[in-house]
């Protein structure tokens, strides 16, 4: 015991030293030359990983569950200056008139490609809805290595991209306009230390037939393609709301990312993710029509957040292969750049925020560095891509891995020259989850800098303060089945109901076109953002209470805190096949915290829930 407290004291001192070191370096405005003279910088330009310099990256927590102590495997990344490059905007993916290679087929093209010795296509099941929803547009995408700069002070990185872009290009899709994507695996033979050249691309969270969903076990090899059919159709088209589906189930902000079983964290960390936007007659992208949300693309901006570590010697992206808890990075990337800046005009913007993982929870504030006590409110309009019934005003917003939050920020109140920082003030020491301590303004992670510029500008978008109405929440009906799931840990192995993921094991079967209630229960000491593929759910209750206004809509990721108990309502409509439920802390997911369920026309009904719910 004496031993432990001594060690803790030493660590506490190191953490204090780290803060002091950082403050000193910032206060002294040390130049490169100064740092080199002090022996803190190598000639290649990297900061020597002086013990204590980056306490955040180096320490995990103690057994009590609340401090920031304990061993951690990742040395601090090299020093980079914040806000030196503009935030990139991903290009809009353009359709092609014709696929390269063989023409698309309903059945998988299993003919052997003589050039590779593999079937041309990695798909193993026929398209179930291609003839009903013939593709009106064709897209082609090549997953391949790309040389990318994440920051001018770091060397060029060899990342994995879609068509050379990290993050991948943005799909702009429309309800009623089905598309077919030919997805090629052209990844290089050398992975540079992590990642596997075997991929399955999930469209999160499209109403997508199983064979096109990007199921974790539907991976395909280098030299193969996989045709993915996205019908862009509303849920309920063949069941509750024929023939066009339920408008109250409309999605807006989706994303696509690799989902290869056991390797998802590595492959996504390496770059395999991007946005997929869905517009319709209400969410039009035109601020003069429909819901009059800010104009796409000029004032409708996608941001994917990712925290990463970089090797202190080489400056190259580093992934801790030994981590089973959750990886926290000490560098914060937005759209692939470390701590960029973004110039905004004095008007309303729609920001589509996406936590791209791998493990961190954020709580974002808009901090004015010149007035730390200023509270800058903004509006949440959408949760996980589902527009809320009405905008909700907040002063901060929590977002777990894979959650999407669309917000409206009105910069018209700020004079030109104002600087606002997107700041994560949620303390998190390791993969277990945040501590719930909110750091004081200016002490959090400065993720992005907004710079208000003076260009004259018009704004035809709706003012959220007028309380515009978007979609109603669909009514809940009697459920056909209730199921209970416990997310826990056994001997360092992640489990759902005491079992591990196995591609070949169907844990239960849901009857198509029925409603179900699922009760999710969190375990001791760990938090899990749980994602269920295919249909959006409604949170009936969280720990017996009505969920907050932001959670009172539709979602596809639910944050499961320590010992939390959430009840979800679902419908499973229109398509059949295999889908997973999993923790979206991708490290937990890759360590088997996932299950497979199948949707079919019989279902099974041998399960029940404890009767503590309504």
């Amino acid at each position, binding site marked *: 015991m004496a031993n432990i407290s001594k060690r803790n004291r030493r660590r506490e001192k190191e953490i204090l030293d780290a803060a002091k070191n950082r403050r000193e370096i910032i206060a002294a405005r040390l130049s490169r030359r100064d740092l080199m003279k002090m022996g803190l910088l190598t000639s290649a330009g990297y900061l020597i990983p002086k013990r204590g310099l980056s306490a955040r990256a180096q320490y995990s927590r103690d057994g009590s569950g609340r401090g920031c102590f304990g061993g951690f495997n990742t040395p601090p990344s090299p020093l980079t200056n914040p806000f030196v490059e503009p935030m990139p905007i991903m290009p809009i993916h353009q359709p092609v008139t014709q696929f390269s290679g063989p023409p698309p087929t309903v059945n998988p093209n299993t003919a052997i490609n003589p050039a590779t010795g593999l079937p041309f296509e990695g798909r193993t099941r026929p398209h179930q809805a291609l003839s009903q929803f013939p593709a009106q547009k064709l897209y082609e995408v090549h997953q391949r290595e790309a040389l990318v700069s994440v920051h001018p002070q770091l060397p060029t990185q060899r990342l994995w991209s879609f068509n050379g872009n990290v993050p991948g290009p943005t799909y702009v899709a429309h309800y009623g306009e089905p598309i077919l994507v030919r997805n090629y695996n052209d990844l290089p033979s050398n992975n540079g230390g992590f990642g596997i050249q075997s991929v399955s691309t999930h469209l999160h969270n499209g109403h997508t037939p199983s064979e096109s969903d990007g199921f974790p076990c539907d991976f395909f090899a280098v030299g193969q393609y996989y045709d993915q059919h996205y019908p862009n159709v509303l849920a309920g088209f063949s069941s509750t709301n024929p023939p066009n589906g339920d408008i109250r189930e409309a999605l807006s902000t989706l994303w696509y990312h690799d989902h290869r079983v056991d390797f998802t964290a590595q492959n996504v960390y390496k770059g395999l993710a991007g946005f997929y936007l869905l517009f319709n007659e209400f969410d039009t992208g035109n601020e003069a029509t429909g819901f009059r949300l800010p104009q796409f693309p000029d004032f409708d901006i996608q941001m994917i957040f990712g925290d990463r570590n970089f090797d202190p010697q*080489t400056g190259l992206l580093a992934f801790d*292969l030994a981590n089973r808890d959750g990886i926290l990075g000490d560098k914060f990337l937005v759209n692939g750049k470390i701590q960029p800046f973004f110039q905004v005009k004095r008007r309303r913007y729609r920001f589509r925020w996406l936590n791209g993982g791998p493990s961190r929870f954020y709580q974002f504030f808009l901090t004015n560095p010149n007035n730390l006590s200023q509270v800058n409110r903004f509006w949440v309009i959408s949760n996980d891509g589902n527009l809320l019934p009405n905008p909700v005003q907040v002063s901060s917003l929590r977002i777990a891995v894979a959650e999407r939050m669309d917000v409206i920020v009105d910069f018209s109140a700020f004079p030109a020259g104002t600087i606002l920082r997107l700041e994560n003030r949620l303390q998190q020491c390791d993969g277990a989850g945040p501590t719930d301590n909110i750091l004081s303004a200016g002490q959090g992670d400065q993720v992005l800098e907004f710079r208000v510029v003076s260009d004259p500008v018009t704004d035809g978008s709706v003012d959220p303060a007028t309380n515009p109405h978007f979609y109603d929440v669909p009514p809940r009906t009697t459920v056909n089945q209730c199921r209970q799931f416990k997310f826990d840990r*056994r001997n360092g*192995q992640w489990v759902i109901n005491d079992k591990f993921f*196995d591609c070949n094991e169907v844990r239960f079967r849901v009857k198509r076109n029925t409603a179900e209630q699922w009760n999710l229960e969190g375990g001791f000491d760990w938090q899990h953002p749980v994602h269920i593929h295919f249909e959006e759910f409604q949170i009936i209750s969280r720990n017996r209470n009505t969920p907050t206004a932001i959670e009172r809509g539709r979602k596809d990721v639910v944050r499961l805190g320590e010992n939390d108990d959430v009840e979800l309502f679902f419908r499973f409509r229109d398509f059949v096949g295999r889908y997973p439920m999993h923790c979206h802390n991708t490290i937990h997911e890759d360590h*088997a915290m996932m299950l497979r369920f199948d949707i079919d026309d019989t279902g099974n009904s041998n399960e029940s829930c404890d009767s503590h719910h309504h």
Partner: protein
Amino acid sequence: MARKSRRNMLAMLTAAATTGGGVAQASGSDDGSRQKTQAHYFPNVELMTHEGEKVRFYDDLIKDKIVVINFMYAECQGICPGITANLRKVQKLLGDRVGRDIFMYSITLMPEKDDPEALNHYVKMHGIKAGWKFLTGKPADIETLRRKLGFSNSNPKLDKDRNNHIGMVRYGNEARQWWAMCPGQANAAWIVESILWMDGPKRIQPQNGTQSKSEKSAG
């Protein structure tokens, strides 16, 4: 070794064995990442096998190989017997590839007690066949291995409790730099499937006039 059942599995294994899984890549630029990974995760410490053979962890056991690694100790009454029995099934399913181009290693968490003789006794008791090595060494080296390979618990209290030791199995292909983990208590057939991903995709030589069977390719 004659096999009566699992014809498909065996056919898959044989096919895979001829594709050269585990052989170092000639192509691909030498970017130093293998050395970096070795330095970070695979210390070249000296170990003893249950057969009393002296080996170097990286040079002799990891380099250029497809490997399966877990931790155990002979006296363990918790999850170890179950996992050992499960991995014995894995060994059976993998057949004579174990020891030829797939290598299974179990490292003791109790090196002070588990000398080669004790481990050899454990091997005999569990009916473990050749090609699966049980390893012991200096306690400090074992501890280094345990931490570097990702078998420590982030909670120091739980980490000290051997009954709570990590039940995962690390699998990988050193030459391809593919590394992942699966639960040691998962279905044996699933563990085998995961290990066989390390072969890379199963290529089919096109034959004149015959339609080749399409199999799920894995890498």
